[in-house]
């Protein structure tokens, strides 16, 4: 594996390998010395053209715990704000001799484009409304752990139903998760108001529904998406209150969930909009497990890409 640009780059075997390694990596968090020497002497650059807290910091911690040198470059405070093009920025950073570029960019396809320009490994940390493959990996990791509480060796998600609710049109998390969950064998059901379902959704390997209450009792996992106000110019739904009534994970809906079903949210949450405080803090909420999984999964991916011979 040279780059990680899309969740579709990974087959079931590769996903399982990454998740198994992430399980080993997660043990590092509990050790007195949180450091493995595997990537000593490698340099990883986080190139972020969009705001991020958890993705950037977890990539940074992941790289550092594997002994790589990690440098953060954000668009604000770099030459990007002076008008430098993506190509020039990427070539400049690559010319310094870095081994991997972790790229987040508002334009869909930017990491793919960058991977054509340079020799370094490229990891997609979220590109526009396209994909966010490491988020899908950490969601799969968290969900697999949840399933393993009942079936200890659960590998595939065959026979499981994952309901993804919210702004599908603008969500890279949804796209990557649809691809990966489908590869792992889960049945994905997308739920959104018709205005937030993208064109061409009939070609996705999913079921689509506009009524959350109808599918909720069938879900093993309910994944709530953030309402991304920064990507919306308005007109997608009448009011926030109406969105909550139709598609928010409210307390009555929390109670309508099947016993043993769990809640995910990629964060940051709009409490009271797409998810109620009751649901966010519920015993079956995996939201903080997702954050913890972020570091382990990204360690695993960095090791897979950079751990061996070039």
């Amino acid at each position, binding site marked *: 594996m040279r780059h990680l640009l899309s969740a579709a780059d990974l087959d079931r075997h590769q996903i399982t390998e990454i998740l198994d390694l992430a399980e*080993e990596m997660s043990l590092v968090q509990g050790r007195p010395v949180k450091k493995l020497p595997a990537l000593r002497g490698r340099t990883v650059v986080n190139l972020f053209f969009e705001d991020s807290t958890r993705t950037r910091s977890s990539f940074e911690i992941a790289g550092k715990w594997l002994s790589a040198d990690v440098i953060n470059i954000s668009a604000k405070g770099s030459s990007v704000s002076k008008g430098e093009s993506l190509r020039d920025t990427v070539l400049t950073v690559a010319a310094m001799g870095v081994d991997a570029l972790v790229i987040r960019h508002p334009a869909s396809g930017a990491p793919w484009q960058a991977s054509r320009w340079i020799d370094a490994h490229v990891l997609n940390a979220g590109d526009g409304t396209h994909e966010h493959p490491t988020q899908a990996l950490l969601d799969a990791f968290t969900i697999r752990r949840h399933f393993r509480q009942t079936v200890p060796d659960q590998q595939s998600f065959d026979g499981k139903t994952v309901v993804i609710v919210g702004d599908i049109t603008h969500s890279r998390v949804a796209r990557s998760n649809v691809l990966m969950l489908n590869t792992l064998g889960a049945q994905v059901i997308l739920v959104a108001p018709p205005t937030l379902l993208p064109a061409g959704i009939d070609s996705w390997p999913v079921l689509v529904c506009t009524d959350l209450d109808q599918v909720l009792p069938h879900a093993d996992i309910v994944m709530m998406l953030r309402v991304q106000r920064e990507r919306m110019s308005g007109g997608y739904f009448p009011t926030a209150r109406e969105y909550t009534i139709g598609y928010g994970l409210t307390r009555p809906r929390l109670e309508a969930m099947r016993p043993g079903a769990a809640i995910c949210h990629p964060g940051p949450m709009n409490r009271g909009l797409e998810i109620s405080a009751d649901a966010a803090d519920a015993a079956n909420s995996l939201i903080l497990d997702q954050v913890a999984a972020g570091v382990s999964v990204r360690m695993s991916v960095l090791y897979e890409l950079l751990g061996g011979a070039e």
Partner: protein
Amino acid sequence: MSGTGAPQAQRDDPGPGTAVGSAASRVVMDADQIARACARIAHQILEANRGAEGLVLMGIPTRGVPLAHRLATVMNDLEGARVPVGALDVTMYRDDLRQHPTRAVGHTDLPAEVEGSTVVLVDDVLYSGRTVRAALDALGDLGRPHAVRLAVLVDRGHRELPIRADHVGSYVPTRTGEHVSVRLVELDGLDRVSIEPADDATRGEA
């Protein structure tokens, strides 16, 4: 289990080990011999440690782990004490990571606090000593043991680092290109140590 690199196809110098001219696979330990070696090593560890107090056995994957369990079984029968057994994967501490495609990482399982204990590292074959060097580094990141000992089933010579084993099942003279194949019932269905000739030593292991 330390790869000192690619299989050195045909090298005629016998190295510091003894020259053994043979083209076919040779069995150097059978099931009985392996069982006796394990029993002896277990006795030696207990004798050197004056009992089972503070001992932790850490097998190095893959075949060090079942060997560590065997040693613990003998010790438990002898002393009636439960000696903790774990696994210590050293993949990410190896000095040859960059010379191979990304290596699969094995499982590390810490059965007891390393701090202050006497850790016995258990591996199947001692060759270059590089695996043990990696294991010492890996162990250091888990805590500070009171002492670290090394027990191996086979010492085949050709050390590249100043490392020796405290307890050895059998000294087996080999040529550098040969492959020492250790098979254990737990993983391979039979107990046998054999030397595979240089031509077949495609794995360049041990």
